[in-house]
């Protein structure tokens, strides 16, 4: 009796249904992306929004936000926030630049040191948040300024400047960390451009997103992250090491931020201590537009990627249209508002969605 019931359930589950589509949390983010993409494709057509070179403008921009947005999304699913990334990005760049320029270390050793420094900052963030139960917004706000201060002070003390140059790191390292890539098939008139002028950060983003997708949605760790954001006490009682996991997530977000700082430094051949306050908001916007719930327990990597693409298009796309560029921020604001409202209704649908027939 139970078995027949079960197989019936499986039957409906296997088929395509609108409900199961709504139940996917990234559905809203994907729909939003498609709308925004079509909108800008139409209005930006004449100004090359869709040409490989035009597309790389917003893709490159999106990739840097995206690398940080994914671990920020993890943290938000787990019920936390990290705004210290704004200072960890330049920290990642200057540590690498100083390791290579000042101490003549191998570039990859420099990368490791930079990641280690970022990991340490994340560790401190996580430690304070888990030990004191002070909201992570406040803790990371404090570390944002602490790290920003250290960036300026240490680089002045060690190198006497806040602008570090990072020259000639070798062709292979540059290829992987920070360069422009193009892929053109054919010759002369028959040449077809697959992509053009995409930065290394774009490819790092894609690989990182794939790894993070595996962690959150395929591996059992993902379940722990969701459980932690859903109900921390229950998660701990179920045997999940919530404190360790949280610290690891803070380390991941800091290391991702440092990675972005490093690719920027290698690409521009220079690293600066300027704190990237804008990036704090950009990452949070991408995550929220991507359908991650601010209160935790709900969200996807795919959604965050869609959210980041949408954000990248809106942020850069206005340059391809005839709209006044001053409207840029207004667009972002409206987008965020719509996204939050849509997420709410999508979540309600997801909760109610059931493939079983009501009896």
């Amino acid at each position, binding site marked *: 009796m*139970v078995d027949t*019931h*079960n197989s*019936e*359930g499986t039957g*409906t*589950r296997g088929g395509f249904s609108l409900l*199961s589509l709504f*139940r996917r949390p990234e559905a809203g983010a994907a729909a939003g992306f498609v709308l925004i993409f079509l909108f800008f494709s139409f209005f930006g057509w004449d100004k090359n929004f869709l040409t490989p070179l035009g597309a790389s403008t917003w893709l490159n921009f999106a990739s840097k936000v995206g690398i940080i947005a994914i671990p920020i999304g993890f943290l938000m699913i787990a019920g936390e926030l990290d705004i210290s990334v704004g200072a960890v990005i330049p920290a990642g760049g200057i540590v690498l630049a100083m390791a290579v320029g000042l101490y003549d270390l191998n570039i990859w050793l420099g990368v490791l040191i930079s990641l280690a420094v970022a990991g340490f900052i994340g560790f401190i963030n996580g430690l304070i948040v888990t030990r004191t139960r002070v909201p992570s917004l406040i803790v990371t706000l404090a570390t944002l300024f602490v790290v920003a201060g250290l960036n300026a002070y240490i680089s002045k003390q060690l190198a006497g400047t806040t602008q570090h140059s990072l020259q000639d790191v070798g062709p292979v390292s540059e290829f992987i960390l920070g360069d422009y890539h193009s892929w053109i098939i054919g010759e002369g008139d028959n040449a077809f451009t697959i992509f053009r002028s995409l930065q290394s950060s774009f490819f790092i983003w894609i690989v990182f997103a794939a790894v993070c997708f595996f962690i959150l949605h*395929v*591996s*059992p760790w*993902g*379940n*722990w992250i*969701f*459980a932690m954001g*859903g*109900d921390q*006490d*229950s*998660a*701990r*009682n*179920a*045997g*999940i090491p919530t404190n360790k996991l949280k610290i690891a997530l803070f380390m991941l977000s800091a290391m991702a931020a440092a990675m972005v700082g490093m690719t920027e430094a290698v690409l521009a051949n220079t690293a600066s201590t300027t704190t990237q306050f804008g990036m704090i908001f950009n990452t949070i916007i991408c995550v929220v537009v991507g359908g991650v*719930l601010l209160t935790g*327990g*709900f969200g996807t990597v795919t959604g965050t990627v869609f959210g980041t693409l949408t954000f990248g298009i809106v942020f850069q796309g206005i340059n391809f249209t005839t709209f006044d560029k001053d409207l840029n921020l207004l667009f972002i604001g409206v987008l965020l508002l719509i996204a939050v409202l849509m997420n709410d209704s999508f*979540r309600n649908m*997801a*909760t*109610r*969605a*059931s*493939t*079983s027939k009501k*009896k």
Partner: protein
Amino acid sequence: MADQAPILELQNVDKSFGPIDVLSDINLKVHAGEVLCLLGDNGAGKSTLIKTLCGVYTPTRGKILMDGKEVHFTRPRDAQEMGISTVHQFGGTFPLMSIGRSFFVGVEPTKGWGPFKRFDRKTANEISVKAVQDFGITRIDDGDRLVGGLSGGERQSLAIARAVHFGARVLILDEPTAALGVKQASHVLRIVNEAKKRGLAVIFITHQVMHALAVGDHFAVLIRGKLAANFMKGEKSREEITDLMAGGEDMATLEAQIAGEDTELHSPAHVRTSQQD
């Protein structure tokens, strides 16, 4: 059954927070296949007693025995490993996770190897749905459904099925019917009965006497941290239990007071209005 050692026993347990004694001299036993109803008004010490049983607090004095042997719980995990499982009022589940995922939180079934271990969604869904259906909740047939979409009673049932599936021997239910409607509550009571039939010891905390009488074998009433009564099924009527819970004589005095006020204050007013009519 009585000659067997009880699964869980409290001997002279006291719990104080600084100078405040919350529990004093509690003696309780619960056997396998028995439902112990713990009754008491708000602030009677019910929650403290549960938290002591499930390892959140350690008793200030006295002993906790399992199967006749003394045990010490320093954290909730210790109690869980001994087979004591607590289900809270709202089920302690994760509203935005699927049934299959939330069922296996912390003990995920996996496929694959090493760092490439994958969460086995199919197995998780099948086992969780079967576990709930075995408890008679046949409406749950889709493990991908989000827990938040279930009714309160279904969520409780899911949580109880989960505890039983993972080998609980003592099930502590903290006000499982408090937030539920009549029909949902009867669902949960049926599941409590089912758990009892499977040989679990159930500690059922409630302040609804009707629900307690429906499933209980053994009743204990807590008043201001003390065990005011400890009796078996059929030994006391519903009225007697309600009186006990509310503090017995206190209630009678209060009733008399209200009745007195009624005659002194309200009746003349009532007479006046009726005169005006």
